[in-house]
Structure formats: structure tokens, C-alpha cells
């Protein structure tokens, strides 16, 4: 039995007091314990940003890489050892801005990872510029006239690309988020959990209170997770009412299950065979 204590990192936390990330970290620990996974069985991969620092504050295997590139690193790690349990912590800037291309292609591949996007609508680590998910009109020091571009809708994009598991959580509801993470990790294939995360330092609009007044449990409201059109409709709901929960879930062939070379087990478990290589080398032209 794994205890939550096993995941306690003795590395000093660097987030602002009251940050939405704390709720996400708690939900991650609860989910990993709930799944009965030990820290050494888990690899957390992240990019750059406040969200991407998460694995430092969690005891686990960690690859804290470049801005936007976490999913690419996860793709390679999966190819090498597809038996690993991989979580990716990313932010709205990291995943939907810098890493937008990798986000789309990880969905296309149906990589068996669970992607947690800490979505606070701002760039926290660089002090509050609007992110791709900021709502039009949001005023920041970089956007003094207000944001003019449309807000990026990650859920609608993921559903339309055919992602097998698409969900939204709220950092202010760790219990619900923990269950989403467990469901995402149990799902075989790509899981996106976009997480509404208040930023207490730079986002004065989308606060805990703002969200608490608006979020409702989509699944408790009778939403059908196997209905593509319903998922698209729900993903476009934003304003007075904001749905959280599982928007869409469907089973699809997993990236690494389709590769002939992986049928004999993970690449790293297969041994080098000099005779086989010599046969290839000795083939005539």
C-alpha cells in the first residue's frame, strides 16, 4: 500500500501562496496513491513554466525539459519503455502556445500519457502576460489595450482531433480532479485534463470565487461521454456556466501497441543481437 507521504518531496516549493497549483499537486498525489502506484513506477515529464515545476515538488522520476516540448520527450520515452506510467505537467502557454504543434500530434499518435494542463490564462513565470487561453479583453501590462485574439479552446480542439479522453478539472476541487486524473491514467491512450487554475498573482478576473460560482459537474448533469457532438457542444460552453468533468471518452488503438518492434516488449528490454545485424550487413546489393 503506497502512502501519500511517499510522494512528499523535501525540495522547497516555489509557488506563490494560494496558487491553484497546490490543489493540482494534492490531486496528483491522491490519484497516484489511489491507483496504487509507487513513486519509482511513475515518470513525470514537464516543459517550462510554473506548472512545469510540479515534478520538483513531487517525489518521482522527473524529466523537466524545454518550454513547450514535454509531449515530444514523452513520445520518445514511451518508444523506449512503453511500460512506464507517464504524466505530463504543462501550462496553457507551454502546451497551447509554444508546444501547440506537439499537442496536436500527441493526440494524433494517441500516445498513452496523461496530460495535465494547468490553465490559468496567463504566463505566470514571466509575470502575467496573456496566454493563448486568455479571454478577449483581458488587460495585462503586455496587452494594455486588452487581448484581441480569440481564446484557444483546448477541449474543442482535442475532441475534434479525436482524442480518446478529454476532461476539465478545477484546481479548487481536488477530490474531483483526483478522480479525473485516475480515470485519465486508467484510460489507455492519450488523456487531456485541462485544469482551471486561479493565478493569485496575475489573473484578477478568473479567481477561485469567479470559478466557484460558475463550475458545474457535467457528468452529474447527465452528459454522455461517448457522444462526439455533445462533447463539442459542452466544450464550447463558457461564461455563466462552466462545465467540468469528462467531456469525451472513446477507445482507440494506442501509439506503441501498433509498432512491430515493440511486440516483444519494451525496446530497452530487448537485447542486441550481433548475428541478426551481421545478416543485414552481409546482404548483397
Amino acid at each position: 500500500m503506497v502512502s501519500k507521504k511517499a510522494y512528499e518531496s523535501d525540495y522547497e516549493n516555489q509557488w506563490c501562496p494560494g496558487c491553484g497549483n497546490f490543489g493540482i499537486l494534492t490531486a496528483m498525489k491522491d490519484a497516484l496513491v489511489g491507483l496504487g502506484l509507487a513513486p519509482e513506477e511513475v515518470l513525470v515529464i514537464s516543459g517550462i513554466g510554473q506548472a512545469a515545476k510540479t515534478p520538483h515538488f513531487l517525489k518521482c522520476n522527473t524529466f523537466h525539459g524545454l518550454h513547450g516540448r514535454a509531449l515530444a520527450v514523452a513520445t520518445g520515452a514511451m518508444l523506449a519503455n512503453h511500460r512506464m506510467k507517464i504524466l505530463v505537467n504543462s501550462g496553457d502557454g507551454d502546451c497551447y502556445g509554444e508546444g501547440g504543434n506537439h499537442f496536436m500530434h500527441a493526440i494524433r499518435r494517441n500516445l498513452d500519457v496523461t496530460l495535465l494542463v494547468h490553465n490559468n490564462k496567463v504566463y505566470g513565470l514571466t509575470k502575467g502576460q496573456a496566454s493563448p487561453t486568455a479571454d478577449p479583453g483581458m488587460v495585462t501590462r503586455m496587452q494594455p489595450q486588452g487581448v484581441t485574439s480569440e481564446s484557444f479552446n483546448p477541449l474543442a480542439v482535442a475532441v475534434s482531433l479525436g482524442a480518446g479522453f478529454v476532461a476539465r478539472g478545477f484546481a479548487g476541487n481536488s477530490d474531483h480532479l483526483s478522480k479525473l486524473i485516475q480515470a485519465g491514467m486508467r484510460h489507455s491512450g492519450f488523456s487531456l485534463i485541462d485544469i482551471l487554475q486561479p493565478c493569485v498573482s496575475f489573473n484578477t478576473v478568473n479567481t477561485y470565487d469567479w470559478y466557484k460560482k460558475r463550475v458545474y459537474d457535467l457528468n452529474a448533469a447527465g452528459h454522455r461521454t461517448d457522444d462526439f457532438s455533445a462533447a463539442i457542444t459542452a466544450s464550447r460552453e463558457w461564461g455563466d456556466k462552466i462545465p467540468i468533468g469528462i467531456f469525451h471518452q472513446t477507445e482507440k488503438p494506442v501509439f506503441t501497441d501498433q509498432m512491430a518492434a515493440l511486440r516483444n516488449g519494451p525496446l530497452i528490454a530487448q537485447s542486441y543481437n550481433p548475428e541478426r545485424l551481421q545478416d543485414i550487413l552481409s546482404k548483397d546489393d
Partner: protein
Amino acid sequence: MPIDISIKIGGEAGQGIQTVGHLLALACRQAGMYVMAVNDFESRIRGGHSFFQIRISDRPVQAPDHRIHLLVALDEKTVQIHAAELVSGGTILMEQKAGSVQGAAPVPFVELAGEAGARITSNTVAAGACLALLGAPFAIMKRILAGQFGGKSGEILEKNIKAAELGFAAVREMAFKWAFNWKEIRPRGVLMEGSKAVALGALAGDCRVGAFYPMSPATGIMTHLASLAGDCPVVVEQAEDEIAAVNIVIGAAFAGARAMTATSGGGFALMTEGLGLAAITETPIVIVNAQRPGPATGLPTRTAQADLHFAIRASQDEFPRFVFSPGTPEEAYAVTARAFNLSEKYQVPAIVLVDQYFNDSLFTVEHDLAAPREIERFIVGDKDIKDPAAYRRFAATPSGISPRALPCMGKALVVVSSDEHREDGHISETSTDRIHMVDKRQAKWPAMMAEMQPPRGYHEDGDCLLVGWGSTRGAIREAVDQLREGGLAAGSLHFTDLWPFPDSSVKSLLQKKKKIFMVEQNTTAQLGQLIRQQTGLNFSGAILKYDGRPFYPIEIVEGIQKKM
């Protein structure tokens, strides 16, 4: 009389020029000939002008020759562009009426192909005509065609055999001065493109993951690797861009699989941040940069050697890395495998520089390539670690190399960060940790330097030394032969191991030389600059070519003669 014949087949992209060339190459090998061929083409799939130039000799040849004995013109442009390259007495086979072109004989390739039943076989007609001129028995042609088209329907093979027969018959009355006596003997070695040698070298380095984004002239490497993936535990994944490719490779290597990517200069530019990530996380990766002229898109299907300084310096800040550049397929096989081994041993990125000429040319690889008996891995597990729970990925050691465990393979937790970090992999901004980690990484240099092989000499006792690196090896050696025949005490030094620079061996090899001439495919003699930087020795002059085409030996010979 020694045999040394060059045949150039020119036409539009899409006319099957390479097929003609390959048929000739395979056939000539049945007569025990050494074959070398270059592939010159534009960045387009149809039209334009391209050619395949094949050199056939009874002694090893490793560079293209400028003298053409037989020009096969599948279009009119080929005659206009290349007729002047024909040696005295040479022959032109051309589609259209001969007109006033000296040495030209019309062969209606397309019409004869139509007669054979498929106009698409006009290239086979041309191949048949060439082999007939060379004096080949038709049986050889037939056997080669069966090998090439045997997998297809009997009808396709029949039509090609018929096309070849018509080609043979079309030139029956013609004499070709350089026809030779075809004694069938067992061919020496195998024919191989440079790109295939790199892919095989990757397998010899136990590469398990290849990730790449298509880019000429690197694509061939990954196509070869992908074609072998069914027989070996290798996965080749086409990435969404070069940034993804290098990060996939880093992720795979972090998790324990040896991994590589191949690209050209523009893609390598995009991979530069990833190169730094591999460096600071001390993750071993191999990047092959198949050079082409730049900057930006430059000349996509042509050759260059202008990324040497880029490869050595790419990325912000400073860190150890290996840079190699092979000169022959045998060297490419060995060097690529070494790149994997050394990268893993020292936990640093390794870069292999090849180029379009090398990747797309066919070479005769005379001696069998040998698979290594075993692969030494530089990885630890819980059993090798005193207290796995206290494992620190970047623990200090005198060599700078920390024992490397893999994630999810034991109690040892592996924590790495692209931020500067402590020994346990967690972020640190303290002055002490920063200095500690930089010094740890830089401490690897001396041992890495000791791994580097000195440049290879050829008549290196000569007073006049031609110095080059990478794919120019064959052309330089042949230039040395010609210069020596002309009475000049010439020799050459050729580099495959470029960084860390083998300072002391280079200094001792060069310091007493009267004349040092750099031979490079860039405008500033990048290796020459590097030699000066690392040894203080100056070169006397440089033969530089940067038009995107490979060196002919004669260009080097004439360049040297002008400077002497």
C-alpha cells in the same frame, strides 16, 4: 590498359535516370569492376535537369571524374549542358536526331520502349544500349533485370527485357573505344550509398529509436533505418517538426534507448535548443547533419561542408560534445557506431556531419562490414548503487561522468532538469551549484579528447599537404596521386574526428610541413581556421568549392598547381 570509364545519363526528373544508373552499376560489378556514382538533381519531382554519373574502373575509385566517355541524353538539354565534358572520341546517345553534335548517335529510346510494350521502359532501353557499347553479354543484363523487377508481375519483367534487347540491338553497329572484356567474376564487396552506411552504423551502435522530420539530403538515412526496423528492435518515428524529433530522441535516450535523428542545416538550427537540453541533462543523443548549401533553404539537393563551425558551436553557453565527419561508407559505419558508444559513455551529444554528395552517391564497399560482438552499455541499476533511495543523477565524480540510472527501472529515482541543478537534479540558482555543475560537465573534455583519432595520412611525408575532412577524402586522395605523378611531393591528411580537436597529434603532423593547403567545400576554410585556433599553425592556401557540386580531383590538382 587500366579501365576508367565515366558514363553520364542526363534528363528530366521522373525519366528514370537513377534506374539506368543503378542497372549499369550492378551489371558492371558482375565484371568485377569498382563502381562509383554521383546523383545530381534539382529540388523537384518532375522536369528540370538531373544526371547520374557513374564511374567504372578496375581499381578502387572514390570520387567522380570530370571526363565523360559516354553521354546518354534522354533530353536535349543534356546535350547542351554536358556535350563539352565528352573526351575526344567519346560517344553521345541521344533521343533526338543527331544533327551536328560531334560523336552523337541517335537512339529513339521512347519509340523502342513503345515497341517493347511500355514507353516507361525507355530508361531500360538506354541501359541496354550502354551495356552493349561496353561490350557486356546480354545474359548479365537479363539477370540484373530479373533481380530488379523479379518482385513485380512477369509482364513488367518481360517488357523490360524486351526493352533492353532493343537497346542492345540499336547500337549493334556502333563501336565504343572503351569497351572492355567482360570476364564474369565474383563482385567485390557491395554497392552502397553513404546514407545507408550511416544507417547501418547506427544499428552497429545499437540505435533503437530514430526520430526525424523529412529533409533533403538526410532523408535517405532514416528511410534505410526504417526499412531495417522489421528485422531489428528499432522504431523510426516521423516527427511533426525537427524540434519534436530531437526531443523525442532525448526522451528515448533518457528512458534508456540509444537514439538518433538526422537532418540538414535548417533542421539542425531548429534542433539547437534540444542539443543544449541533451547537454545540460547529460542525455546521450546522436544527431546526423547531412549538410547542404545554405543559409535558410539554400540549395536543398546539393552539397556543402559549411556547417563545421556551426556543429561545434551550436547552442547558447558551453558544453562538451563530439563532432565527427566520415569520408567513406566504411568510415561512416564505424564513426556512427562510435558516436553512439562515446555519446553514451560520456553522456554528451554527438554530431555526425555528412553531406548530400556523400549521402546520395553510390560507392563500392570492398570489405565486409562487421557487426560488433557486443555493445557496452554505460548504465547502472539498483544493484550497482549503494543506496538506491539516495541516488543522485548528477553526483560528483573525478571524471565528471555520474553513474546513470534509468527512470522506472528500480528504486533509484532519476530527476533531471533543463534548469541548472543540484546533484540530485532539482533546480538550483546558487553560485556554488552553478559552478559545480559547469565544472562537472567540462571535466569530461580531457578524456573525450583522448578518444579522438588523429587525421589519417596518405603520403603524409610529402612536403605539400592537402588537408580536408569528411566526404572530400576520395577526391583529395586522387588529386594527391595525380600531383605525385606530375612530380610534386604531395600528400594528404584527412579528418574524421573533429571535436574535441585532436590538438597534439595534428600539431606534430603539420608543424614541419612546407605547404599546407586546405581543401574544403565552404568559403572560409573552416577546418583551416580550426587548426589555426587549436594549434597556432597557419595554412598556406585553400582550394575551396561552394557551388553545391562535389569536387572533381582535377579541380584540386589545378588549384594546387596554380598556387605552387
